[in-house]
């Protein structure tokens, strides 16, 4: 099958599918009018039942907590897959060790302005702090573990572009990161199991709910959100390190 045939086949299918879809969508209720009862029920109840002001996070980490557990393990297994696929193979490791330096393959290292260096180092701390803030206030305002985790995990890239490669390598390749990834995933499941130990169904909110609007409120929602944050931070840090591993070792060779 050549490209032309493939595109032609796609065009026929797309026109057909688009026509059927549009005919069906024309019978939907207009999009500015929401009709389902469930959203209204939960929006009215969540604040009183769970003492969390952010209903979306209350649903994600409590009402639909089991789905999020599955999603968490999906992230875990995806990162495991990335690490398995991108791990250095044995012969490759030897080859890169023997390989002589070859500066031509890298573009000449462009000079880095001092402003960038100072700014990125200054912003690094601010960035991590902001990630922690977003991650721990998920039950009150928009935010939550996932968003905070991604922000924290992207922070070491600032050190990398500031040519502070040693610090970057020390943070990213620390064995603690892998431990944290496993810990985050396991802690979520353990919180669920703790409910079983007390004698109530899996992932029931067993902790005291606290005052609405307080940071230490909403029981297990805040705790699960923090666990997800730890897991996501570690997972994305690992992914970044796996992608950059070769380039890092090569840069090190050139420096020596």
């Amino acid at each position, binding site marked *: 099958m050549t490209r032309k045939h493939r595109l032609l086949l796609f065009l026929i299918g797309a026109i057909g599918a688009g026509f059927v879809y549009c005919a069906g969508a024309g019978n939907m209720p207009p999009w*500015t009018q929401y009709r389902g009862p469930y959203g209204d029920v939960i929006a009215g109840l969540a604040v009183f039942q769970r003492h969390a002001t952010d209903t979306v996070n209350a649903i994600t980490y409590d009402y639909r907590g089991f789905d999020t557990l599955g999603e968490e393990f999906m992230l875990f297994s995806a990162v495991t897959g990335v690490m398995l696929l991108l791990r250095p193979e044995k012969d490759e490791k030897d080859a890169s060790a023997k*390989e002589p330096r070859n500066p*031509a393959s890298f573009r000449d290292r462009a000079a880095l302005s001092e402003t960038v260096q100072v700014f990125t180092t200054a912003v690094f701390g601010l960035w991590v702090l902001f990630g922690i803030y977003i991650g721990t206030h998920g039950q009150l305002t928009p935010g939550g573990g996932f968003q905070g985790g991604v922000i924290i995990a992207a922070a070491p890239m600032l050190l990398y572009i500031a040519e502070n490669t040693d610090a970057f390598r020390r943070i990213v390749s620390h064995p603690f990161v892998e431990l944290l990834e496993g810990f985050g995933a396991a802690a979520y499941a353990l919180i669920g199991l703790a409910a079983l130990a007390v004698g109530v169904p899996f992932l029931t909110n067993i902790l005291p709910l606290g005052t609405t609007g307080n940071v230490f409120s909403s029981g297990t929602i805040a705790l699960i959100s923090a666990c997800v944050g730890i897991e996501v931070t570690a997972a994305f840090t690992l992914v970044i390190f796996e992608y950059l591993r070769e380039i890092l070792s090569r840069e090190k060779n050139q420096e020596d």
Partner: protein
Amino acid sequence: MMILGTGLLTLIAVSAFIIVRTDDVTNQLLGLGFYGLLFALMFFVFQAPDVALSQITVGAIALPLMIMLAITRMKHREAVNRAGKKRS
């Protein structure tokens, strides 16, 4: 508000087509960053700030970053292979 929202939806539709038509991967990657920002704004306009925040972190930062690292690694590998061939 509906005017801004509808306009954003149209802009999203147009840019989706343009990004898909772009052949160079680096160019496409930067277009994807723009697309993610548009989505973040659209979520906010349509009263979904939680999703907007995760779209800001994922669509505008994490996805382009991961794709960029993958492209970098592939280009790097090609450069190494070329250098190896030249030597032998």
